[in-house]
């Protein structure tokens, strides 16, 4: 068989996972292209570089020699255009490159909503290494007060980053609660409270950005709030109202685009031998119940990469994700979620929420009112065992079962207090139930864990 050259645009988690899984199964040439960095690094760790927890090189998941050893060619350049007719990739600097199969894994770019003054200096999002550099440059110039617009995960990270450098942070959030479009009320309030009380963030809820004012040098000096007309002075403005697929260079190329690059469940685009995955891909049909048609998280990019790597090696594999999960950290509060927990429950669903009386530790369960089937779990300040949650949610286990074996589910380090007793007690009181908390059993845990062995 003739060997075929796979060219992957984007060296993020999606592109790199594709390459790795393809390489496991095939010896054909692979090239990964990125304009951002020479090597794959962890985008999720950008904040830690800024805060001094790590250096850039510590965020690279593989040693630099890994790529050569695995015969994966790397090229650092920006792709400006793709000629699908002749199967050529055109670059900003170097010569065009021929491909047999093309993978588009170009990720996202920060949203900007056409605010007046948004091109001022000191106004930026946070997505790339270049963004990090410009933040550093702003710090060098001197930043005393920053405003951040958009209450999502990247916004909190930016707030934490800026505060680590002694910058005062004012956080404008459109919703009536922090991350209110994702978190139920109690959780959103707890996080908001943590930010305000423990980290002195000036959190302004239900506030939208109206316009941005700059000084004579063109550097941001203040922002105006739409609702109140209030002017907030600042010398840095972080824009983090979400991200959208990074596909501008593909406009009018004949590739089927909407918000992202349109793909089917095999991650195939409308062009033959051209695939897209990760943040930049948009599914024709959402990949599962409740799932969005653009999934912009690390884990989904990785899972899509696993599938595409297989597909490219001749073993056609659809992207069929299992139970949803995600995690994040809001300053000091760790958050994990499994299954579906929405801000509001549907008619036939019931929710149970427990919070530690003093600490920011909380647990929420969502389950079917009739059958008690567990649908989703939010955990704050409690680590849970992913495998066990995956098992109970996919096998339609009940909330009662989860609570009964709560001690098996907890993944906190040794010597941490287990709150199972209080949680079960509160559940029993609230629902007039008689769940009995069992002690931890390795036998039970083992059976589930070992299912994932081969």
């Amino acid at each position, binding site marked *: 068989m003739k060997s075929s050259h796979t060219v992957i645009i984007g060296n993020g988690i999606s592109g790199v996972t594709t390459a790795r*899984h393809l390489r496991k199964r095939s010896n054909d040439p692979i090239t990964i292209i990125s304009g951002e960095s020479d090597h794959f690094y962890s985008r*999720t760790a950008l904040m830690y570089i800024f*805060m001094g927890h790590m250096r850039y090189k510590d965020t690279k998941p593989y040693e630099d020699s890994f790529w050569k050893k695995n015969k994966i060619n790397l090229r650092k350049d920006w792709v400006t255009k793709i000629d699908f007719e002749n199967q050529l990739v055109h670059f900003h600097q170097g010569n065009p490159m021929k491909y047999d199969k093309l993978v588009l894994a170009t990720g996202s770019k920060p949203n900007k909503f056409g605010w007046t003054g948004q091109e001022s200096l000191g106004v930026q999002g946070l997505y790339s290494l270049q963004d990090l550099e410009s933040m550093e440059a702003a710090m060098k110039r001197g930043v005393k007060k920053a405003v951040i617009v958009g209450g999502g995960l990247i916004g909190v990270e930016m707030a934490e980053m800026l505060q680590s450098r002694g910058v005062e942070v004012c956080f404008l959030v459109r919703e009536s609660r922090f991350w209110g479009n994702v978190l139920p009320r109690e959780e959103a309030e707890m996080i908001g409270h943590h930010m305000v009380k423990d980290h002195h963030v000036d959190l302004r809820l239900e506030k939208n950005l109206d316009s941005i004012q700059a000084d004579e040098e063109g550097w941001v000096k203040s922002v105006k709030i739409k609702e109140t007309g209030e002017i907030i002075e600042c010398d840095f403005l972080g824009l983090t109202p979400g991200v959208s697929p990074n596909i501008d260079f593909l406009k009018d190329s004949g590739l089927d685009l909407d918000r992202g690059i349109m793909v089917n469940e095999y991650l195939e685009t409308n062009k033959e031998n051209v695939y897209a995955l990760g943040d930049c891909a948009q599914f024709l049909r959402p990949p599962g119940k409740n799932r969005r048609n653009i999934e912009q998280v690390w884990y989904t990019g990785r899972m899509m990469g696993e*599938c595409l790597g297989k597909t490219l090696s001749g*073993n056609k594999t659809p992207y069929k994700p299992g139970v949803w*999960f995600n*995690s994040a950290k809001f300053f000091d509060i760790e958050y994990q979620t499994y299954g579906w927990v929405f801000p509001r429950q549907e008619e036939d669903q019931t929710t149970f929420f427990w919070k530690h009386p003093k600490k920011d530790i909380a647990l929420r369960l969502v389950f079917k009112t009739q059958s008690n089937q567990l649908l989703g779990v939010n955990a704050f300040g409690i680590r849970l065992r992913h495998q066990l949650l995956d098992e109970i949610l996919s096998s339609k286990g009940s909330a009662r079962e989860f609570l009964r074996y709560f001690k098996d589910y907890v993944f906190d380090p040794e010597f941490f207090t287990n709150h199972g007793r209080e949680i079960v007690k509160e559940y029993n009181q609230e629902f007039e139930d008689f769940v009995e908390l069992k002690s931890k059993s390795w036998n039970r845990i083992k059976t589930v864990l070992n299912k*994932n062995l081969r």
Partner: protein
Amino acid sequence: MKSIKQLGLIIFLSGLTLFTLISFFGSFSLSQEGFEKVLTPKQINNLQGLASENLLNKEYRFTWQLASDFKMIFEESNQNLKAEESWSKVMYSDPNEISGNLAKEAAFGMVKDWRWLWFFLSFGFGIIGALMYMLPDLKLLGKPGIKNNHIYQRNVTNRGWIAWVTMFYLIGFYLLLYFFPYLLTNQILLVDDVSLALSGNPASRWFLYGFMYTVIMGTMAVRMFIKYRHSPYQMVRTGVVFFFQLGFAFLIPEILVRFNQPYMDFKNAWPLNYNFFFEWNINNLIANGQMGQFMLVWGIVLAAIIVPVFSYFFGKRWYCSWVCGCGGLAETLGDPYRQHSDKSLFAWKFERWSIHLVLVFAVVMTGAGLYAFNSGLDQVLGIGVHNIQKTYGFLIGSIFAGVIGTGFYPIFGNRVWCRFGCPLAAYMGLIQRFKSRFRITTNGGQCISCGNCSTYCEQGIDVRWYAQRGQNIVRSSCVGCGVCSSVCPRGVLKLENGPEEGRINDNPIIIGHKHASLAKPSLD
């Protein structure tokens, strides 16, 4: 708050400066009495004449002048004896060590007379200053949580010049301690009263070392308590490891001596405690009645039963991070430098060679010693047992474990010795790797490959490499400090003891997705 911190730093540095400069203070004059007290009859016999001429009752400003005179007459006497071929009279002891003991006897004047004042100004200032520097962090660093901000932006923790100076200072201190103890005469004098109170004996350089070790570990443990107060695992571990240092390594041995029992650190297991099976130690224990015999049996039980059994149940962490003195210092004084461990594959390869070679060396040395002890010969295969032991003591015991082990903290990380050199760690590592219930469980697919775990692993384990592919971490070198688990922002890692079945999951399925795994295609 900030000003308390700064004042603390100034006080600490004054204490440290004084502690260092005190080597230059005081005066020294050796009396006949002191001379006789320190030396053996044979030495007195050899040296008396020369000493009366050019050592005794002479007034010195500095210890090294006294030492240089002593070493001169020592050499001269030995040369004469060799020339006369009076071989039996030739002296083999270390003149540096004797000089130290003589200098201590010879001391008089302002340091000796004002010991408590100097003690307070050096140790007291050091401790008070350090605490003033660290305690405000309770407030300044904010709520409990990960406190790694600016580690790579600060000179001290990012291999800046302060780190280099610290490294050379530490190395210098160890070199003096091991090889030129007479330069530390005044420092030893300062803790004389403490030693007298504990064991009834005047302080030796080893007492000074043990005292400093304990004080530094205790002070830096306070820093650990503040920094990791969100993690009960870290709090308990730090408390326990300091307890073992204070009780087992420092107080109990001194108290044993007070009651005329052999000096013994009951937690110090062979082969880290490499001279446990040396002839002199065995003889000493046997000669010391029931207590001595108990100690001998305990030492054997510890190394042969307790160490492997505990390592089976808990992994080697039970020792390395909870009990051991070297580990204890690494986890307290060394914590600010943990990120400097080398994570490269090359370092891993080097580690496996070096640590196992040291283990082999220790085993061979001990075997040779025991063979000699049994057979009454002092040579094995033509090599002097004593020479093997001396070489080991110098290369491994002093240079590797001490000078490099601690000296290298600020630049190469806090576990250089534990990772590359400790034979006990190698021994327990084999158990941990092949027959143990301990593992670090990886939490399904939750890893975001951020790299915090690998960065802060003091043993240079690329934890992320395992975590991001959903694989448990089962590595011989893991000392179970638990910091990878603490710093992980996504709750991916858990140190735990559980059934052996499934502990090593080489080809895990990354949870969250039913179709794909890293397994080879043939297995799919």
